């Protein structure tokens, strides 16, 4: 390699991501676009977080968070979602390394853990509504059900997305376009876990403490 070629190479490499050095690979561009979508999703949730933060003491004489929340359940939910993030990452890694049989195992584990999270959340919601603490009871409960429910709807959407990705891998195999969609799915699933960190901290831990 001549000295010029070497410096050109270094210059081109260091210019990547800043518009120089030629177009970025498709998977980088796709992941960037999906990342922008996820950030806009975070903005949606920030509005719901703000509403909850203001309204969490407005119980209108109804039950408070400390009376309603069961921290043991929340801990199990958190662990389900965290482990499903882990298995989802391992699944994406297996797919990238062209190991479909491993991918299917990890996808199944991700689905089961995500469904377990939703089942615990649904039971919690049903129990609260049964105790007369439904979303119509107070401003606190309205904002609670909106924030936690919107996250739950996202998880449900994620499970549909995952089932759809498994079907694509079955039918089309681990081709580059399928791998890119799989990358988007794993970004989505990890982002849901990040939002859940905010939910359990603000709603359940700080809410329970006060």
């Amino acid at each position, binding site marked *: *390699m001549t000295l010029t*070629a*070497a410096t*050109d*190479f270094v210059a*081109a*490499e*260091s210019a*990547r*991501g*800043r518009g120089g*050095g*030629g*177009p*970025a*690979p*498709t*998977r980088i561009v796709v*992941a*960037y676009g999906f*990342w*922008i979508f996820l*950030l806009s999703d*975070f*903005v949606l949730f*920030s*509005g719901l*977080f*703000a*509403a909850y*933060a*203001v*309204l969490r003491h407005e119980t209108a004489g109804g039950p408070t968070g400390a009376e309603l929340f069961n*921290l043991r359940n929340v*801990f199990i939910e*958190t*662990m389900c979602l*965290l*482990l499903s*993030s*882990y298995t989802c*990452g*391992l699944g994406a*890694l297996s797919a*990238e*390394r062209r190991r479909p049989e491993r991918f299917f195992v990890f996808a199944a584990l991700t689905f089961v853990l995500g469904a377990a999270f939703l089942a615990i959340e649904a039971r919690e919601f049903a129990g609260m509504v049964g105790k007369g603490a439904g979303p119509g009871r107070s401003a606190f409960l309205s904002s609670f059900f909106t924030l936690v429910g919107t996250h739950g709807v996202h998880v449900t959407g994620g499970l549909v997305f995952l089932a759809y990705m498994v079907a694509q891998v079955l039918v089309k195999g681990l081709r*580059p376009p399928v791998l890119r969609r799989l990358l988007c799915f794993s970004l989505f699933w*990890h*982002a849901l*876990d*990040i939002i859940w*960190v*905010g939910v*359990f*901290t603000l709603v359940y*831990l*700080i809410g*329970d*403490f*006060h």
Partner: protein
Amino acid sequence: MDGDNRVVDDRTPGVEEYEPTASYLSYTAGLGLAILTTIVSFVVSQTNLLWPPGIPVGLVVLAFAKIGVHLVFFLHLGSGPDHTNNIVALAFGVLIVFLVIAGSIWIIANLNANMIDMIH
């Protein structure tokens, strides 16, 4: 020569390059750190290990630490050239989220306070 083939000028738009993004080890390390910070969060909220008035602040700090772990180990946000745009977008997203949360809390708290005056 090998180096000459890697000059980036001949990259065709849209051509896939295989680039392993992470390893099993990094996911496992991330899982370990995330579980650790989660358990610490739950313990801190239920005990008096921290000075009680400081517990909410401690929980928020732990939440940010956990979000950092997720971004680095699960979303693989790094300092490499491929991540420059992602980091800039994230910084902008954080700014918007901060403005929306702080601004909304300010406005809604005002409305909420005035609402109580109207009822009574």
